[in-house]
């Protein structure tokens, strides 16, 4: 049974078909990269998986359970699927530590004292041990993005979604964040990421999906997508992206 299974997912904003029947299978421990031009629907698809956007048609299965049933309480699902955004979205009125502890405290009812050891360990693992008590505006972009990742991880999600988490960062900070993803992959985390980092996708992805106009035009292991794309659209996109 795949960890995550999307079947014919349709998402519309008014008349605008943003996801137009998307089928996607993500196996446990896989890293899937979504690539495609701006406006192709990558972010929207991730938001649908996290139930931040309701879908019009199709179904999304997590461990074989349909999580897209209308009326299902999204909270329990979201606690199992973490998402990290391009713009970090840290809570500016809380320190890094408070940002990270908020959800476990509120959703799982754990106390600060209970949480502190494991959260501290997370901060250390991501090289943020001395930044814990800083506010977001006292952190660099790369640090903020790593805090955002730690925040999502603190809920111990089974799947992590990443939406172009490096595109707001200076080039020298990008590596810092991508290293974190490799580390997670090493630990067997199931991940779906929308990215423009073709080099990273090629090196780290188990599967690459090329989206265009709300459809997955082509998918496969990175070698076949990047070296022998079969579709014209993919070729054109890669020609421009890899230039």
């Amino acid at each position, binding site marked *: 049974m795949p960890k995550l299974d999307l079947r014919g997912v349709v998402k519309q904003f008014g008349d605008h078909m943003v996801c137009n029947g998307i089928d996607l299978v993500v196996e446990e421990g896989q890293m899937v990269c979504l690539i495609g031009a701006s406006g192709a629907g990558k972010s929207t698809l991730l*938001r649908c998986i*996290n139930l*931040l956007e309701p879908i019009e048609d199709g179904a999304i299965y997590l461990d074989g359970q349909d999580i897209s049933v209308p009326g299902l309480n*999204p*909270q*329990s699902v*979201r*606690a199992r699927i*973490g*998402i990290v*955004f391009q*713009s970090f*979205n*840290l*809570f*500016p*009125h809380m320190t890094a530590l408070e940002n990270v502890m*908020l*959800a476990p405290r*509120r*959703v799982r009812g754990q106390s600060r004292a209970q949480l502190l050891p494991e959260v501290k360990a997370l901060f250390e693992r991501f090289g943020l041990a001395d930044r814990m008590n800083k506010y977001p505006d006292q952190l660099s972009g790369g640090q903020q993005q790593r805090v955002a990742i730690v*925040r*999502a991880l603190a*809920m111990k999600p089974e799947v992590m979604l990443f939406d172009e988490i490096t595109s707001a960062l200076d080039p020298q900070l990008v590596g810092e964040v991508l290293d974190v993803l490799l580390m997670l992959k090493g630990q067997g985390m199931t991940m779906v990421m929308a990215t423009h980092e073709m080099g990273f996708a090629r090196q780290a992805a188990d599967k690459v999906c090329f989206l265009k106009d709300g459809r997955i035009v082509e998918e496969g292991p990175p070698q076949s997508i990047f070296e022998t794309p079969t579709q014209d659209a993919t070729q054109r996109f890669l020609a421009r992206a890899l230039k």
Partner: protein
Amino acid sequence: MPGPSTAGMTRRERYEAQQKRRSALIAATSTVTVVAALYFLVPLAPGWAKVQQSFFNGEVLIKTFPKLLDAFRINVMIFAWSAPAIAVLGLLIALARDAKSPALFPLRIFGAAFTDVFRGVPVILTVYLIGFGIPGLGLPRPWNSPYIWGSLALILTYSAYVAEIFRSGIDSVHHSQRAAALSLGLSERQVMRDVVLPQAIRNVVPSQMNMLIALQKDVSLLSFIGPVEIFRQAGVFKSLLANFTPYVGAAIIFLVVTIPATRYADHLMARQMRERR
């Protein structure tokens, strides 16, 4: 010649320091000129002696000031218990208006009606209607006190305004903050309480400061239904002494409180503008 000067300042710093001295000099000169002109010219006006006698009468001021100060304690008292109530009620109304669950639809309607009504009616009318109207229903003392119902009128009116400010504050929190909080598995309520509200409230502190200043002045409207606060006390002195100086005295007392508060609100506002940029 480029390069650091003997004072250790860069060329730019020296230029800026010089500009600053120049502006300060110009500002000081023009201020002194204007003040001097007022000081010397106004007394030349033909009616000055009369105006001074009835508005700026030192003797009357000295005689009435302590009593005015005493009456101002009533203003402070009414303010002190109204302001927290306004903050709480205003916040509740704002939340009621943003309630999403259909079960809370009546609450939303109520919130909307509340803000429409109490923002639409002049404060003094509300003070009259509630201050005399509700006690007129036959409440026993002390429950019919004008202090209670007059304060309630202020609280209701100001809550309506304060609620709208809170709402604008809630709207000013970027929706991505909500999305981020929801994605972590927080409930709508938790998102509101832990993520949206703290930011919203911080964003509207300067605007709410201005409401507090307005409230401090509007407390005087309670004088219409009985309490002898500073405005009424000044009016009594005016009638008694046939002199307007007590009003000037009351104005001075108000200004001593409101000017620092206003400056502080402006300072907060300016700081917020800088942070936004």
